[in-house]
């Protein structure tokens, strides 16, 4: 995370992201009544030309992936990407309590829960009230390099926070990446500073 603030700010941000990601894991676990394993969150500051490399480094999926995107906004705005390895959320299908669940519906459901909890969890620590738009499937069976159109990205700098989830005894692996572009980074840092000031 070079270039972002000082050691204390980075550390504080890390910790806050940690807490947010923990909320996401907890939400998923409660909804599906199962146990979720979380990785240690990683944070990176990138520019558009680095983004594909950064995503590749964070998401070490070898084959084609399925990705869902969802935006959040209000005082802070950004977008989240939930990237699933082949099979998407199908491994969780028997955990839902309604019949006839389709792959796409489950994919959107799980992604929405993860994004809502993770981003919501992070924002709640700053007393930020966020609004979410519906999730949509970005691509099925694409390679990671093809997910984003690098030429058209409308920001200069973005913070990426990544965590990945596994479910015990099931073929489910999800990488959740949240992107905080430009002004949102400043809002995050201001909130972090406010927190540090109390210590």
């Amino acid at each position, binding site marked *: 995370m070079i270039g972002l603030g000082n050691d204390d700010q980075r550390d504080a941000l890390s910790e806050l992201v940690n807490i947010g990601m923990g909320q996401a894991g907890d939400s998923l676990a409660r909804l599906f009544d199962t146990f979720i394993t979380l990785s240690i969150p990683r944070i990176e500051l990138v520019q558009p030309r680095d983004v594909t490399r950064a995503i590749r480094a964070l998401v070490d999926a070898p084959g084609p992936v399925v990705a869902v995107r969802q935006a959040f906004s209000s005082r802070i705005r950004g977008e989240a990407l939930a990237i699933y390895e082949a099979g998407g959320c199908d491994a969780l299908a028997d955990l839902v*309590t309604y019949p006839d669940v389709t792959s796409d519906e489950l994919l959107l459901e799980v992604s*929405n829960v993860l994004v*809502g909890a993770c981003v919501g969890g992070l924002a709640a620590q700053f007393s930020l009230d966020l*609004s979410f738009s519906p999730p949509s499937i970005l691509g099925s069976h694409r390679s990671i390099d093809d997910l984003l159109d690098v030429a058209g990205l409308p920001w200069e700098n973005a913070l990426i926070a990544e965590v990945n989830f596994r479910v015990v005894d099931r073929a489910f692996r999800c990488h959740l990446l949240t992107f905080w572009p430009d002004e949102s980074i400043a809002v995050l840092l201001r909130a972090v500073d406010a927190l540090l000031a109390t210590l």
Partner: protein
Amino acid sequence: MQLPAGISTLDRLNAGVFSVDSEMKIVHWNLFMASNSGKPAEQVIGKDLFACFPELPAPWLRWKLRSVFLLGTFAFSSWKQRPYIFKFPHNRPLTGGIDFMRQDAAFLPVVGDDGTITSVCAMLTDMTDAALSHQALDEAHLQLQRELIERERMKDELRMAHKLEAVGQLAAGIAHEINTPIQYVSDSVSFVGEAFTELQGYVQIYRKALAERSVADPVNADTDLAFLAEHAPAAVARARAGLERIAQLVRAMKEFGQPAQRDKTWGNINRAIETTLTVTTSEYNKVADVELTLGELPEVTCHIAELNQVFLHLVINAAHAIAEAHPGERGQITIKTWSEPDAVVISIADNGTGIADDIAPRVFDPFFTTKPVGRGTGQGLAIARSIVVDRHGGALTFETALGRGTTFLVRLPRS
């Protein structure tokens, strides 16, 4: 988030807004929900949502609402995965095109003064127009794809057809060239045959002269001479038969390679059939026996080269049908010709696969084929029909039984 106090605003929205508490009892119900469901607010407020609307997808909706109560985050649903939640009438009473209103939904937690989630507010958006546009676009896309595939296939067929045409012309050219050397060979073989007979005569004269003078025959060649006398003429005869066959093939190829004539000429149908069988021998002789019953036919005015093509396509189709139906066994191609008061009729029958009911109406369509590219151009029957019907005023029909075989009938009007 608190619901705004101005309920009249909610009622003017062209979207459904309602909320339920943690017991699934309805707390708010706006005008959109009331008019579309036929149940006004007074009738449903305080009642269980699922009791009021038993047609709702209860397990799914309960899951959705539970997730909002449990997690405190937004939840969504899209018409693309779930066309509708409530069976509401669509907004197309005149134009129709769809069964029920398509709906997107958003579910939001409503937090009470004590910080807990007291109810979930749902917003239903009418997405019917978007859905119908999507549907139309999907269909157009599908149609385009189908046409692109068809176009590729036609391009392949056309390429094949051009190649065959070129080969046909080449064959005609070669046939023409072969004629001359065949002539030489034929003449030479005849000469050698006659020369041998003459030489035999001379040998007999010499032997007789030797015998009269009581001189021993230096060439005690009774056995050799006898051998030569027996086998040489036979060899000549075989050579001539072979040459005749070559000449027959060459003549047939030339007749096929002829360009389309402008005027009709008198033609012998039976001969055309025989010519065709000669040219197509390699197509059928491994898979079928041919039974030929050629009746007495008057000559008819026709484009004989084109009729050759018709018979060619029919015989080849027959052979292919047999090969497909009886791999490894021999089938039967039965060809009959006869004359009727007003027409000359040719029937070409096979005991091959027959033609299925759903394919039958399409067999004469240009470029329609059940064979892979390269094996049949798909144009055969279309061309045949065009020649018989358009160029000769006749008729080309077929009778078929799936699994038993097909009989094609060509009727040509008598001049």
